[in-house]
């Protein structure tokens, strides 16, 4: 197939599918309703770790989970969620919450919406050694 046909087909195919998915409501981000849902998802992602404490964002898009091996961040990732150790991470205040830099090429880290009262609590985890 000549590139002059293949290239537009691929580009418009991807664009078309993306637009269709979006308008079908499939761009919605998952939310953690409560600590139990955080715990359930964290256990799914890290079955060998036991949860000691959970600090969930009021927006429900992320939580810091304390475990015996240190704190972890779990956050909404599209329709799913993912988690990462906070060891070696930086947590930086930004106007609408915090930006978490995980220093991992595979997971650069999210920006998390927080209220002004939540922000100081999350910033306490910035060294990654607060269990």
């Amino acid at each position, binding site marked *: 197939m000549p590139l002059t046909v*293949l290239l537009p087909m691929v580009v418009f*195919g991807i664009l078309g*599918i993306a637009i269709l998915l979006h308008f079908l409501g*499939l*761009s919605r981000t998952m939310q953690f309703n409560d600590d139990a849902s955080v715990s359930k998802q964290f256990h799914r992602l890290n*079955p060998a770790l036991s949860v000691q404490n959970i600090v969930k964002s009021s927006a429900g898009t992320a939580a810091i989970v304390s475990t015996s091996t240190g704190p972890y961040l779990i956050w909404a990732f599209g329709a799913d969620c993912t988690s990462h150790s906070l060891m070696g991470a930086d947590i930086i205040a930004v106007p609408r919450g915090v930006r978490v830099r995980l220093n991992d*090429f*595979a997971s*650069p880290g999210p920006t998390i919406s927080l209220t002004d009262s939540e922000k100081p609590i999350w910033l306490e985890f910035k060294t990654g050694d607060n269990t």
Partner: protein
Amino acid sequence: MTDPLTYPDIVNMAVPAFIAAILIELCWIVIKGKAGRYETRDAVASLIMGAGSVASGIILGFIAWGFFVLLWRLTPLDLGNSVWIVALCFVLDDLRYYWVHRFGHRIRWVWASHVNHHSSQHYNLTTALRQTWTGTFTFMMIVRAPLILLGFHPAMVLFVGGINLIYQFWIHTEAIGKLPNWIEAIMNTPSHHRVHHGRNPRYLDANYAGVFIIWDRLFGTFVPEQDDDKVDYGLVNNIGTFNPLRVAFHEWVSVYKDMAQTGISIGQRFGYALNPPGWRHDNPGRGSEALKADYVKRNPEVAGSPGFEAYKP
């Protein structure tokens, strides 16, 4: 020297069918409200990976092709191009695929290329297109060398490889349950391949087949999908990015960081490239076997069941 034997580039020709099938699966899922999940950014990332993989083939394909042509000039054998020879080539190439795929999960250097295909937490037809951009750098074209030295023309070998890739497209779906027993016994199916994409300890390092599941049954890597252990798709340590560049290269970056760290021997550096994913010089026992053993320790009732045959509580 030019060689007149040519075959159509069927993977590129199949692109319209891929797009149509994705739209049909999407409609099915939306109408039924089950049988799979789609998410915009995940699907777009997969589709861009697919487009990038085709581009990578166009840009770097000459390396593998040059290698195959060199082998073709060296071999005194030529099996011709009859239908039966093409069929035999297809079966043997599928055996080749099984081993390349198995290496892709058990040798980190090859895993660095293949990992992106497993990096989605979804399992739908777009996941099938989440293909590598860096396959050339794994040097796995070497595994095709015996076929060409045996007298299968390089163009035929690539043609049947394309058919293999197209076959594997339709099995990336949750919309199809289990097929009749005789098909499940011989062919790779959506059910068998869902297992392969699972991050559940039971399903790790299983069902490497391309077209024929018989290779897994033969070499002891077959695990059937279990009704009481729903497949959880993705990686043991899931990534947190939809950026195609990060998806394509993240494990290569990780391999480089591990190999370049200070205070380890040359052998240990190569160990990070050649051992299975999860291996560490200070903890060589990590990896899928340790995950399975740990799971059985916490859930002793699963010992001896499919995927845990070799594990005791």
